C-alpha cells in the first residue's frame, strides 16, 4: 500500500490543525446541546449547573475517550501491522471493563477513588499481554482476531460471573452498561480520576511515531534504524492499557472507534503510521463528540447509548474490512 499516490496532498501540519479545529468545533457544539434544550442565551443557576456539572464533563470525556480510542487503534494497527487491530476487538476494552467491575464489586473503589481507573488499566494490561502472547506481534490478521475473540470472551464471562455472584439487583442492566458504553450523566469527579491516566497513556502512545514509521520496513530494518523494540513494545502495551483502561473504567466499552478512525484517516496521513497517531487522536475525539451530539439531537428523550451507535456504524464497517482483507489475502 505504501508509495501509492493516494494521499490528498495535505501537509502534515495542516492535517493535524484541521482535525484539531474540527475537534474544537465539535467540543463547543457538544456544550450547547442537551435534553433540557438550554442554550448559551439562558440565564440562572440551572444554566450554570447544567454547563459546569453535566455538559462540561460530558464534552471533556467525549473528547478524551474518543481521542484515546482513535489513538490506541492507530497505535495497535501500526505496531501489530494489522488493519483489524482495535482496543475493543482485541479484548483490551473487555479486560478494562472486567478490571473496573472487579474494583467496584470488591469494594475497592469505595475505599480509594483511583481504584476504578487503576482496575481498568490493570485489566487492560492483562488483556493486552494475553493477546500479544496468543497472537504474537507477527501473527496474521486472523490469528489476532481469534486471540482477541478469546480474550474478550473470557473477559465477558468473568464480568457476568462477577455481577452474577454479586448482591446486585441490577446485574443485567449493569452488564449492558459495561458492554455498551455511555457518556451520559458522568460527573467532574469521574473526569478528574480518569483524565490524568488517559493523558499519560496518550502521551506514551504519541512517542511511538518514529518507531511505528520504522516498523513498516520490518523489525530488522527498524532495529538497524536505532529503534529499541522492547521499549516500543512496552510503550504500546503501557500506553494502551493506561489510556483505554482509564477510559473504559468511566464510560464502559465503546467499540469500533479505534477501527474506523485510523482507516478513514490513513490516506490523509499518507499511510505513515507515525502521522496517523496524532491524526487519529483528533479524529477519534471529533468522531465521538459528533456522535454524542447526534444522538442527543436525534432522540433527546430516549437516550440512545453511544456504544450502541458506534457499534451500529462500526460493525458493518468491520464486515467490509473483513471482506477487503480476505480479498487481499486471496491475491
Amino acid at each position, binding site marked *: 500500500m505504501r508509495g501509492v499516490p493516494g494521499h490528498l496532498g495535505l501537509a502534515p501540519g495542516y492535517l493535524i490543525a484541521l482535525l484539531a479545529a474540527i475537534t474544537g468545533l465539535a467540543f463547543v457544539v457538544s456544550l450547547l446541546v442537551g435534553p433540557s434544550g438550554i442554550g448559551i442565551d439562558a440565564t440562572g443557576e*440551572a444554566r450554570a449547573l*447544567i454547563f459546569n456539572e453535566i455538559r462540561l464533563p460530558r464534552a471533556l470525556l467525549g473528547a478524551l475517550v474518543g481521542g484515546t480510542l482513535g489513538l490506541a487503534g492507530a497505535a495497535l494497527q501500526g505496531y501489530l501491522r494489522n488493519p483489524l487491530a482495535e482496543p475493543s476487538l482485541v479484548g483490551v476494552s473487555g479486560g478494562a471493563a472486567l478490571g473496573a467491575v472487579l474494583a467496584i*464489586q470488591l469494594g475497592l473503589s469505595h475505599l480509594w477513588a483511583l481504584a476504578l481507573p487503576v482496575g481498568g488499566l490493570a485489566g487492560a494490561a492483562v488483556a493486552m499481554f494475553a493477546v500479544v502472547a496468543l497472537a504474537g506481534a507477527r501473527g496474521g490478521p486472523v490469528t489476532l482476531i481469534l486471540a482477541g475473540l478469546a480474550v474478550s470472551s473470557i473477559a465477558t464471562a468473568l464480568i457476568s460471573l462477577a455481577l452474577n455472584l454479586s448482591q446486585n439487583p*441490577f446485574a443485567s442492566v449493569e452488564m449492558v452498561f459495561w458492554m455498551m458504553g455511555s457518556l451520559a450523566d458522568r460527573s467532574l469527579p469521574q473526569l478528574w480520576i480518569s483524565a490524568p491516566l488517559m493523558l499519560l497513556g496518550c502521551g506514551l502512545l504519541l512517542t511511538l511515531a518514529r518507531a511505528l514509521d520504522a516498523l513498516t520496513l520490518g523489525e530488522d530494518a527498524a532495529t538497524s534504524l536505532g529503534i529499541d523494540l522492547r521499549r516500543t513494545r512496552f510503550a504500546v502495551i503501557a500506553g494502551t492499557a493506561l489510556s483505554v483502561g482509564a477510559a473504559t473504567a468511566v464510560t464502559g466499552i465503546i467499540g469500533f472507534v479505534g477501527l474506523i478512525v485510523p482507516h478513514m484517516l490513513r490516506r490523509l496521513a499518507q499511510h505513515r503510521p507515525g502521522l496517523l497517531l496524532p491524526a487519529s487522536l483528533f479524529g477519534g475525539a471529533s468522531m465521538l463528540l459528533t456522535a454524542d451530539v447526534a444522538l442527543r439531537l436525534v432522540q433527546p428523550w430516549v437516550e440512545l447509548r453511544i456504544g450502541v451507535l458506534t457499534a451500529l456504524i462500526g460493525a458493518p464497517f468491520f464486515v467490509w474490512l473483513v471482506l477487503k482483507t480476505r480479498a487481499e489475502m486471496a491475491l
Partner: protein
Amino acid sequence: MRSASIRRLAVGAAMAAFGQACCALADEPAPAPIRVVSLDLCTDQLLVELAPRDRIAAVTHLAADPAVSAIPEKARGIPITHGNAEDVLRYDPDLVLAGPFGVTSTVDLLRRLGRRVVVVALPQDLDGVRASVRAVAGAVAEAAKGEALIAELDQRLSLVAPPASPRPTALIYQVGGSVSGPGSLADAILTAAGLRNMSAAYRLSRGGQVPLESLIAKPPDLLVLASQEDDYRTALADNLRHPIIRRLRARGASVELPWRFWLCGTPHIADAIERLARVPIKARGQ
C-alpha cells in the same frame, strides 16, 4: 442466589410498572393450610403478617433482608427456600404462594405435581394492595385478619393530611436514572401522599429514565431518592452520587425512600405514604 431472587423481584416490579394487568386467582374454600411455602418477597411478607408462625414452612431469604423487606425481624428464623421445585417439595407444602413473574416454570411444575399454588398479583394501586392482602388471607384461611390489616391501612391513610392545592410535584429517582411512571404502585403512593408524579413532565410514560440535565432544568418540588446508594456496589448508582444530586438536595425538598417501604404492595406502604406526606415542601415556583 440472593441476586437472582432480587433480580426476579426487580423484573417483576418493572413488569408491574409496565402495567401488566393481572388479577389474583381467587381460590375455592379449603381447609386451613398448615405447611405454607412462599416463593416471592411480597407474598413472604403478607404470609408472615397473616398466618401464625407454626403454619409457615418456608419463605425466601429476602423476607429477612432489611434492605428490601418491611418485616425483617418477624421473618427471622423462618426456614428459607431456594425457590426451585425440588427444594419446595422438601417442605411437603399444602399451599405454595408465588408472585406473577419469574417463577412460572416452578409454579407449573408444582401444580403438575398436585400442589396447591396461589399466584398473587403485584398491585399497581392501593386497591391492588387490598386485593393481594385478601388473596393471601383467603388462601391461608385468615380472612378476618386480612380485613383487620386492611382496616388498619385505611385508618392510617385517612389520617394523612389532605393534599395542598395545587399538589406539589414529586419524582421518584432511582439507580440509573430510572423513575416510576404512572400506573405503578409508586405513582399511587405519591398520589396518596398528596403529591403529583412529575415523571410525565419529562415526556416519560410507565417508567423510563430522566437525564440529570432535565432534572436540573425542571426540578420537582420534592425529589424522592429511591434505594440507598450504598446498598449495592454498582456503577449504575453513579447517578445518585453525582454532585448535581447534592446540589438539588441542598436547594429544595428531598427525601430518601428505601425500597423496603414500597417495593411490595403490603399494608406497610402506609409507612412510605406517611413519610412522604410529612416532608415540608415549599413550591419552587415553577
